[in-house]
């Protein structure tokens, strides 16, 4: 695989771009692997990459029922941040952000990570107090966090609606190292880097069943034949319950919900940051892509669904939020909108844990925040699979935390998955 560097760019520029090799192989499945990761999304690919890179486990397959970048990897709003408060979460997401900062170099692939700042508006003294507490906790843990007063905010983002009498803008909580990245490049970058280290990426390979032996999963039935794996990892957020029940493991603290996002036509540079507007139940986040499109999203559709398509009431809701905070967007036209299916968990936090089957490992429950978590998710899931015990950051991100009463509930919303947006 040709490395991306200045020399190769010049060389291929002079040779009609004819010496570039394909980004990753399209191998036939082998009969057995040391580790089989089910799910070729960002988390599955990152896991395979870190298994090979950090733990020298190279006989790894990633099974993807569709194509790389076709699931939730291509259905998000690409926001990366680490403004978490709960123990376990803040260390995890901060490590993820650190991995993002060097990801392009690490993968030899430009993921276009742009640390343009994540700006969370607040609209009441109560909201300011609440967010100050969270951002102070972040600072105590060494994550960057600051508050912008109204004067600073007006200077940085002049065209917000500062005359909103219902929800007046009082300032913003800001994480400057946060930002966004190009989602496709992250998927392709991880796939290419994992493939270079010997990982087999098997696309159009849907899992249809499991064969059990002595309590373990011995082999996986797929649309491309039977594949054996000494260790097996699930990384199929959105469809975790389906696979879990295929393995006859019963229920999970997960419901599948869908989340919509929108892309507008391209406009001239308008917004340099990621802006979040959240009042009452409403929730709206927006950034501008490098092409100039406004990329934005809102809340869940509020009812459980596996359909990868959104419904109209939420389109209206998001449009209303956009107009409330960015009236200048009033005549912008939408190019596309889509919905992704997500694992919403009972406390809003994820699972990287062992399962009742000793050679099966679970990576699931990413709620709203799977994209930003991808590097650390792969890092700690690979660590769990290789070392067979969880790192301290994820030691409570397991299925037993609910019975123990140690839920990791950032929002304090209780056991109702749709409320953990």
């Amino acid at each position, binding site marked *: 695989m040709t490395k991306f560097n200045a020399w190769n760019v010049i060389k291929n520029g002079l040779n009609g771009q004819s010496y570039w090799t394909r980004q990753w192989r399209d191998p036939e499945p082998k009969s057995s692997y040391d580790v089989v990761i089910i799910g070729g999304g960002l988390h599955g690919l990152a896991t395979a990459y870190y298994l090979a890179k950090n733990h020298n486990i190279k006989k790894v397959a990633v099974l993807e029922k569709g194509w790389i970048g076709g699931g939730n990897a291509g259905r998000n709003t690409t926001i990366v941040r680490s403004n978490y408060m709960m123990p376990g979460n803040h260390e995890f997401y901060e490590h993820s952000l650190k991995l993002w900062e060097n990801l392009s170099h690490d993968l030899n692939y430009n993921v276009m990570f742009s640390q343009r700042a994540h700006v969370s508006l607040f609209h009441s003294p109560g909201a300011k107090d609440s967010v100050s507490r969270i951002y102070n906790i972040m600072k105590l843990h060494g994550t960057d966090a600051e508050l912008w007063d109204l004067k600073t905010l007006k200077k940085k983002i002049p065209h917000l609606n500062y005359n909103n009498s219902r929800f007046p803008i009082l300032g913003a909580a800001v994480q400057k190292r946060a930002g966004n990245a190009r989602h496709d490049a992250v998927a392709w970058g991880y796939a290419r880097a994992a493939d270079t280290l010997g990982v087999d990426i098997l696309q159009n390979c849907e899992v249809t069943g499991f064969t059990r032996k002595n309590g373990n999963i011995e082999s996986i039935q797929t649309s491309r034949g039977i594949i054996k794996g000494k260790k097996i990892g699930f990384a199929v957020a959105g469809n975790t*319950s389906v696979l879990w029940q295929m393995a006859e493991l019963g*229920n*999970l603290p*997960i*419901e*599948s919900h869908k989340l919509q996002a929108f892309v507008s036509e391209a406009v001239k540079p308008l917004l340099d940051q990621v802006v979040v507007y959240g009042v009452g139940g409403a929730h709206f986040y927006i950034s501008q892509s490098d092409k100039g499109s406004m990329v934005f999203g809102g809340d869940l559709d509020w009812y*459980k*669904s596996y*359909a990868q398509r959104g419904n109209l009431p939420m389109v209206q809701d998001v449009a209303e939020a956009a107009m409330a905070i960015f009236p200048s967007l009033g005549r912008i036209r939408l190019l596309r909108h889509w919905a992704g299916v997500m694992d919403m968990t009972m406390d809003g936090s994820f699972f990287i844990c062992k399962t009742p089957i000793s050679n099966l490992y679970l990576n699931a429950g990413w709620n709203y925040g799977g994209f930003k978590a991808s590097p650390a998710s792969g890092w700690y899931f690979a660590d769990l699979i290789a070392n067979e015990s969880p790192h301290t950051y994820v030691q409570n991100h397991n299925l037993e935390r609910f*019975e123990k009463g140690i839920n990791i509930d950032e929002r304090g919303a209780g056991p109702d998955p749709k409320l953990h947006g």
Partner: protein
Amino acid sequence: MIRINCPYCGERDHSEFNYGGDATVKYPSLDSSEKEWTEAIFFRKNIKGFQLETWHHSHGCRMWLVVERSTVTHEIKSVKPCHPDLQKVVENNK
């Protein structure tokens, strides 16, 4: 838009309703084990296909309904009042 045929108000847009959740959850007796309570409160089947779920007609008659709906196509097979006595009343008035 999903259209829900409310037994009291007739067919309405789902934006008049609030989604509740899994209608098959049964809470165990008060002296049941932690395990059973954890299972009832936190663990779900998360069906891909037709499931029984509750909806509240919050911008209509304010009744809680049990809806049998596909989580893949959003097709609705049946809508009934949650309360068994009200189910009987609706049946008798048909």
